[in-house]
């Protein structure tokens, strides 16, 4: 069983932005979903965990070893799929994986070959193994990203916004892949797609302005909101008066009409209908409470 402890992590950028603010977390095997809006500090946290950046203060401890002072410890067992990455042109998928496998420390040629073949098959790229990666479509490239993250012997996998730009089918396939892996090791999935977290993760956290707003199991949060979420479909032009009178946590267009959710312990009246909360409601509630 792996354990990742993040203690009081802070990071300020030179332009004055506070990216991480005294953040603490404790994770063990399983998939952990990190939710937060753009600019919340997710990527900073991911990069810091991957050893690509130094925190200003705080500690990261992976399996009892301090990672900040000993980054090679975590890198040795890290799989990292960054939000954005590129590849060398004119190099085939298997060549590139071979290069990265060496960097990960898979020194035996046969081991590399076996693992790369297996990975390519797993991510359904085996048929394209001799194609140049920079000619891949978005989904193929993302699957290649997963494959490279799995090279070697990763005990911690960090995936940063992996499904952005993927079509639903691609995304579905990708998620299946992640959940398969996530049973044995720690997988941190950073995203702003609530649905992905709901489908995949056993644990989740919500981060905003560098601060961890909530941390726990998705079901627990949903349960906590039971009976408190009310929904109503209104005309678009009527949004303003509702916003004044109710605590709107989200509004969504459905068939040209506006569907609003409000948080209220009691029936707010006005033909609002009680609904079963979902994780999205949890997410928006937490953000709303924070503001």
């Amino acid at each position, binding site marked *: 069983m792996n354990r990742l402890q993040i203690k009081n992590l802070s990071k300020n950028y030179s332009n004055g932005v506070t990216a991480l603010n005294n953040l603490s977390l404790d994770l063990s095997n399983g998939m952990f979903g990190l939710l937060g809006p753009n600019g919340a500090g997710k990527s900073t946290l991911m990069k810091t965990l991957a050893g690509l950046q130094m925190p200003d203060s705080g500690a990261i401890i992976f399996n009892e070893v301090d990672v900040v002072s000993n980054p090679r410890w975590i890198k040795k067992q890290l799989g990292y799929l960054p939000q954005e990455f590129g590849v060398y042109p004119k190099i085939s998928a298997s060549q590139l994986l071979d290069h990265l496998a060496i960097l990960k420390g898979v020194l035996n040629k046969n081991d590399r070959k076996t693992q790369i073949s297996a990975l390519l098959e797993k991510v359904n790229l085996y*048929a394209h193994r001799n194609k140049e990666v920079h000619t891949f479509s978005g989904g193929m490239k993302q699957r290649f990203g997963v494959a490279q993250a799995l090279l070697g012997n990763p005990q911690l996998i960090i995936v940063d916004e992996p499904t952005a730009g993927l079509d639903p089918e691609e995304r579905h396939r990708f998620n299946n892949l992640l959940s398969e892996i996530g049973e044995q090791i720690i997988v941190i999935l950073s995203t702003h797609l609530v649905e992905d977290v709901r489908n995949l993760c056993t644990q989740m956290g919500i981060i905003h302005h560098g601060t961890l707003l909530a941390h726990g199991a998705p079901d627990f949060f949903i349960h906590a909101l039971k009976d408190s979420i009310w929904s109503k479909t209104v005309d678009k032009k009527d949004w303003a008066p509702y916003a004044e009178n109710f605590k709107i946590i989200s509004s969504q267009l459905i068939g040209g009409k506006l569907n609003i959710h409000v948080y209220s312990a009691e029936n707010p009246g006005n033909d609002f209908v009680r609904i079963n909360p979902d994780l999205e409601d949890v997410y928006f509630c937490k953000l709303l409470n924070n503001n």
Partner: protein
Amino acid sequence: MLKALIKFEGHFYFKKWGFYAMLALFLGLGFFVSIAANFSIPNVYKNSPYVLTFAIGLFSLATIFSVTLLTAQSLFKEKDSRFEAILYATPLNKSNFLLSRFTAIFGLTVFSFFLMVIGLMIGQQLPGLNRTEYTQFNAWNYVQPFLVLAVPNAFFSAAVVCSVGWLTKNKLIVYISGLLIYILYIVGSLFSNSPLMAGVSPPSAEAMALSAKLDPFGLVAFFEQTQHWSAYERNTQRTALTGNFLFNRILYLTISAFILIVTHRLFRFTTSSEKRGKSKIIKNQNIHTTSYQPTEVVVSTESYHFKTFFSFFKLDLLAIVKSIPFLLILVIWTFLLGVEIYTTIDAGVRFPEKYASSGLMVNTILATFPGFSLMVILFYSSEMVWRSKDTGMLPLENSTALQHSMVFGAKCLSLAVVPLALLAYSIVIGLVFQLAFQYDRMEWHTYAALFYLAGLPAILSTVAIISIQVFTRHKYAGLLSAAFFMVLTNSQIGRRLGITHPLLRFANSFTGTYSDMNGFGKYVDAFGWQMLYWSAFTIIIGLWAGHLFYRSHFKLLRKSNTPVLLTILLCCAVLVISGNIISQKIIITSRNAENDWQQTYEQRYRPYQNQLQPTIAVVKTNIDLFPESNSYKVYGTYTLVNKTNKAMDTLLLYQDKSIQMANFKISNSILIKTDPEYGHVIYRLLQPLYPGDSMQLDFSFKYNWSAFNRHDYFNAIVENGAFMRISNYYPRVGYQAGQEIGNDLERKKRKMPAATPIKKLEEKKAFDYDYGFIHFDAVISTNPDQIAISVGELKKSWTLQNRRYFHYQTPVPIPFRFAVSSAKYAVQKAIYKDISIEIYYHPGHYENVNILLAKAKNTLAYCENNFGPYPFKTIRFAEISGFTQGFNATAYPASIFMNESMAFHTNIKKASKEAVIDDLASHELSHEWWGTNQLSPDDREGAQLLTETLAMYTELMLHIQEYGNENALDKVNLHKDLYLNARGFSTEIPLIKATSAPHLFYNKGLVVMYQLYLLIGEEKINAALKNLLQKYAYPNAPPTALDLLHEFYAVCDKRMHPQIEDLFARIILHEVKLDRAASKKTPRNHYEIRVEATAFKYEEDGKGNRVQRPFSEPVEVAVYFENGAVEKRQCPVVHNKIMTVMTVSEKPLRVELDPKLNLMELMIGDNVLDLQ
């Protein structure tokens, strides 16, 4: 819309600091050109139209540089910022888009170049300049060349580079296209008579006209138009937009416009599609691989580091080798090196083809490779250093445990492989040439040396260039800094800026040359020390950069690493020690230091100029040569004789400053002054030396040179093929006027009085002339496997204590001028009458020995029959190494030394026209009559007419004897061109007074003697020369050039005297032009030819001013017939017109004026017309 677009384009640049840097660079370039560039041509002003056009035209090549940079920046800004999809989706009009962008690039290039012209203009107005070198300021003289050369050149460059950029959408290819244009220019100037390509033989008029038309930069056309201009014309005339120049300018403007129109047609607003892989449907193959399992990893062993290193190395190398630019680089290099090798082998029309030896290949590669490889390294370096970051691989790679110093090392190695591969490829090219030219003696070890001499510096440069990029941490700034560093420390520009010390010149490639006789010589040792120094330096900065490279990716502390620290310490020690050794051995002398020395010398010792001194009458000497240690020792005894009519009590002795001053022993004397820095010692004789009395002077000295400094070409004691004009280094008596500063401008600057004047032609001859001839007796010792050659007759040779001795003696007195050579010679001998002809040659250079023997016989026969007996029993031809430079061959009494780079090892079988061996052999051998010890004129105006011109004449007569008049005409024409091309660059004086102008006494001399030969015939000339020799040869008083003229007068009709005077004593030029030639059939089946021509004759004053003179001689008109016959007729010139009607019976083809070159004509292209 268009206006707004152009404005927007402009803003793009004005926001970039690099753009301002470029503007400043051009302005600075203008200043630099005005101050540092030396286009000084005597009598031509530095701001004359000619010099300004030359400078502006030449530097207009810099627009290639700015166009390429601007294009690379501007064309790809959307792509770089991934904006292109948005841009191309706008309703932007294609024409407006292209036009605005082109206008901005072209306009800014022209603008920045205009700043250079402004800089030049201002620079030339600065106070403190010597105003006598400048003429009246005229802005148009700056603007006109800018308009006719720079603007069209910028237009052409911009059209080509932009089109390439738009059509390929590849930044690298844009850079390559810039390079290609530059190469186009180089090729153009190869075929032109560009003064930039000094040493190249003059091309034929047709070749020049063709390349004038085709040179994209119009420089050849400029040189073609101005090649025969006098100083006066250069000062007053601007390049005229006529003829080939106009054609060239219009041609390239048209080509540029055409390129732009085609580009406009082909250009599409589409994003540069990264090729999607072929869309073949790939079936899901059924494969059985094991399912995914985590695999154990190891990241702390050496094996891990090595494997990551190798993986990066492999990928980076693949990236280079697979790139299109790499292929282009190979193509360009094949072309460049091929042209370079080919022209070296071909050696131009003047010289015979060279053998395609490995040495020639290696020298050519050494001369061209370093600059090219630096460009290639720079080109790839920035891509390489920032590759992970630029491609986006960085986050993937950085999340692994890899050690970044390994990445740095891999980048250095993979980039270093590129120059090494290029070098290996160069060797392949060299081998192909050797095979193609059927010279199959492959010297593998000579080729292999290239990897050390040029390969190691390229490796060091690679590491330095990458390190500099790492230090600057910015892609373009890094590239610029690295380029700047290399320009300063590796190019001639840096040298001109004063960066000359080897400890400042970063890892320069080996600058020596390979000689078949002597290899690379001792220079390899000095090079080794420098490489040691720079290797230590490079390791230190490499380690430092490796460390920073790590930090630039990761802000982490790094534990101190003991082995690295130890390496740095060790390298520091090596750096200090080797640096110390180098700086102790190196002697840096600036031009000024040399001038200062000369000035002080003159000030201290000129007062002794008229002090009577004894003459050296006998030289008895021992010379011990130690070739392998580059040294020799000399012991000697002079017999000094008082040949004046007064007693002497002071002896002023001088010795060259490169020699450790001799130990002198003079009995009965006191040393009163010794001044080793200026080479003088003064002795007071206790017993005065009375007229006619003699005394003894014993001395000994030694000499050696260090390979850290350049060797003296005339004192080249090298391992094999040593040659020393050793008399130059023996003690001399009295003040040495030859050490004075000769340059009048320099003297004026230093406020010095006039230099010791050269004796005037008309000055009265001394009543009792002292030749200063000596009896020479020398015992020379050398290595047991070498033969030492000196002057006079070899009396004896023996071996003693592992040294070989040679005793030389002169049977007749000779001038105080003797030389020594020593090498592992092969010998071949032949006898002509009683004279032994001996050839001493490098065993590998046997090809031409028999020819040389035959030519020597011919020459001896000709000279003995026509001029007088040969004064010795032996004549030797000895080959000497290429480490001696400055002459192809040189004649001493009974010995002629020939440089290995010429004659002995040229492929004369292939070139009957280029009879250089014949000419060299006959020329030098004839000096035994004209110059060495028979006819030895005193040092005065026209002295060279009596030595060099007469040797040229003998050479020409032997050439005619062997190859006939027709063939000789080519030779005469060549020398005429050499004379006409050179004369515009200095004040011309009549041939009879020529002193220091080789183009006069060699080239014009040959033409004049040929024309004299046409005028009075070989027999009369030889009679006159025989008389000259009888009257004036040693020991009779020597002749002056006037005496020669009088001998010519004496053998011919008085009517011819004015013509002879014109030839020798005046500067006469002719201009004849065939205006019309027509033939028509007469009723009796004959042909009537009408010829109309104009003819002018001018006399020049040597400074470019000319006056017309009456054309009194007839001009020969030749008619050529279908059957090959020729009919010639002398036609009088009346009022500068020739009108003649000839009736002939055969069908005429062609009419030509002056077919035999009786006239000294600037343009001969207009002398021929074909008949209908």
